[in-house]
């Protein structure tokens, strides 16, 4: 499934998500043509159960889709829709066709009269038909709610550093399109974990493209009568970049492979820390190697670097995830340390729940 996913989605992005298109969508344009093509091919349902109309792909298979979205810096909430539909499917709710996003930072209350409160930082929130969030309910476990754009009563429009919408949306006794208790075994911050997971893959993908672009440029640009890539100082910087890109890729892949049914927190946390550091290092080196041309709007370097700067912090910065891991490690103590690290692949249940 994985190979097919990857080749299909890469072809689709190569055709439609060109640098001009990506730039044109900045500032909050909805990618009508791109979304239509994705909708047609059913990618948004890839992770939803077969019984409910999805492809029931594992996170391990979904990795290549999210990574491809990063390689092409696709200006579209595809990963968001996949995650939202996966979660709806887990809760027994039919997945949605049509544009879909989620909020990982919602303070919503589900009452008999409807849903009230705010869903913050919703990717493409101003455009999507519906969004998924976890709401407090008058019950021991929180509820998963599916809300329509039509029921939004207020909004604060926001753009991240790459001009991608991250909107705060408020609701006042909104009727849900669907709701269900959050399935047992899923932590209340499942969307935060899922969001972090997606961004790790996108960072890995963007770094891959950025590294190719930067080493290609170093082979072409000539100064002092030689390609700049012939200078050892440049070679050593690119080697560091390659190491970081490799680290981000395998960390993200591990997080997807180990995600399981409950989005294993430890490997997601480790991947986000690794990816965020790689994003910072890779973006800095790519600008340094490109010189002034990389600082222009015309040259597409910034399409990657500005997204890396955005994504490294979304759904928890390196600091936040490091701190959570560190807390757990210190609780286990020096003697339990190695067992904790090697056992994390075996214990998929979230033990890194929100501390705040």
């Amino acid at each position, binding site marked *: 499934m994985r190979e097919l996913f990857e080749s299909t989605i890469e072809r689709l992005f190569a055709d439609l998500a060109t640098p001009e298109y990506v730039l044109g969508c900045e500032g909050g344009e909805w990618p009508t043509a791109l979304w239509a093509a994705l909708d047609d091919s059913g990618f948004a349902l890839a992770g939803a159960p077969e019984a409910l109309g999805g492809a029931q792909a594992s996170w391990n298979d979904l990795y290549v889709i999210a990574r491809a979205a990063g390689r092409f810096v696709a200006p579209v909430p595809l990963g968001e829709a996949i995650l939202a539909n996966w979660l709806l499917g887990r809760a027994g709710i039919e997945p949605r066709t049509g544009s879909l996003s989620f909020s990982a930072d919602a303070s919503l209350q589900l009452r008999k009269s409807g849903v009230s409160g705010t869903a913050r930082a919703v990717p493409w929130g101003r455009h999507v038909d519906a969004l998924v969030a976890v709401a407090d309910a008058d019950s021991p476990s929180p509820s998963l709610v599916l809300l329509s754009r039509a029921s939004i009563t207020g909004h604060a429009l926001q753009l991240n550093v790459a001009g991608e919408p991250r909107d705060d949306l408020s609701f006042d006794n909104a009727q849900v399109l669907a709701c269900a208790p959050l399935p047992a075994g899923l932590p209340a911050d499942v969307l935060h974990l899922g969001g972090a997971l997606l961004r790790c893959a996108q960072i890995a993908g963007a770094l891959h493209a950025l*590294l190719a672009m930067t080493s290609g440029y170093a082979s072409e640009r000539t100064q002092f009568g030689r390609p700049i*890539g*012939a200078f050892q100082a440049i070679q050593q910087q690119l080697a560091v970049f390659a*190491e970081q890109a490799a680290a981000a890729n395998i960390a993200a892949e591990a997080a997807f492979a180990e995600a399981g049914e409950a989005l294993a927190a430890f490997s997601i946390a*480790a991947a986000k*820390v690794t990816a965020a550091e790689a994003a910072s290092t890779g973006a800095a080196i790519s600008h340094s190697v490109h010189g002034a041309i990389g600082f222009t709007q015309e040259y597409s370097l910034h399409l990657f670097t500005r997204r890396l700067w955005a994504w490294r912090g979304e759904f928890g910065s390196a600091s936040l995830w*490091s701190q959570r891991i560190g807390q757990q490690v*210190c609780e286990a103590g020096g003697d339990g340390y190695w067992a904790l690290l090697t056992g994390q692949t075996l214990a998929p249940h979230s033990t890194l729940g929100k501390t705040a």
Partner: protein
Amino acid sequence: MATTQFRYSRIPAEAEALREEVRQFIRENLRDYPPSLRAQSWMGFDAAFSRQLGQKGWVGMALPEQYGGTAAGPFARYVVIEELLAAGAPVSAHWIADRQSGPLINRFGTQAQKQRYLPPICRGESYFCIGMSEPNSGSDLASIKSHATRTGSGWVLNGQKVWTTNAHHSQYMIALVRTGEKQANARHEGLSQFIVDLSLPGITVRPIRDLAGGEHFNEVFFDNAQLDADALIGTEGKGWDQVTAELAFERSGPERFLSSMALLKTLIDALGKTPDALQAREIGRLSAKLVTLRNMSLSVTAQLAAGEHPAWAASCVKDLGNGFEQEIPEVAQLLVEAEPRQEGGSEHARVLAYLAQMAPSFSLRGGTREILRGIIARGMGLR
């Protein structure tokens, strides 16, 4: 070369099943082995412990059964060595033989050489050292001058090696020497590898004290040492290719990022169960790195097992891993007010003193940072 060469590979269940047994063995046999000794990691020497591991079948796990190995496969071996390293077990006696020399002999050796050298390696009784560096040839390994010349019955060896880890404990050295003339346009030609019996007349081994007073590495002199014809391992003149194949094993294992493990553990204990924000963040950051490095290293193991040639990927593991090992003594001093102590003080203070002094060597031994990054750049088509 692409960064996607690193594919995530989980340790197979049958290899994973060994882990608890190794932990149990370590608990029983190293109960009273203190952190300050565990800090030596794979520099800790204990012949009896190596023999015990041999009896358990945990040396030569990558070698065929007919030569005393267990052919347990690379992942089973990985589980065993990472558990030993994580615990700081004294594995230095057999380490190089198990990691590098045994597999080299198995790959390039004749039937007779395998029969002679591999069984004692697998028993944990035969130790090897690596004779590559010379006084005027460090990073520029192809410039070595030690040379072997054919005689009627074998070879005569002359020259000098230096920084040879464990030569003073080892029965054998695998030496890279010149057997043909150096040519200006083919610097890597004319090199060959020999299994040198270090007890032969004409060979002198002298320990060199390191900056902390320890004796780990040596200088080794060859003065008309007479070698048998079958001391040559592999093909005459193909020493460079053989060494290059060896380096992927040498550069990708868990010893390239676990050298400061003892300190990381005493540091975590020193912080206690309620670290402040900075402390938690730094420990978490290091732990994330460690998890990722382990995945990278396991991926190279999978590539080696599949018969690929991951020299490029191995260089990535070693360079990133060395940076991680070297950072730990710095972070330890950032997080806890504990002065390093050679003598007295807490176990943490002694482990810190030892590793703060050892850390610079991590990115020298096995190839320097700059050389590794050069290999990575070459793989990217930049040179």
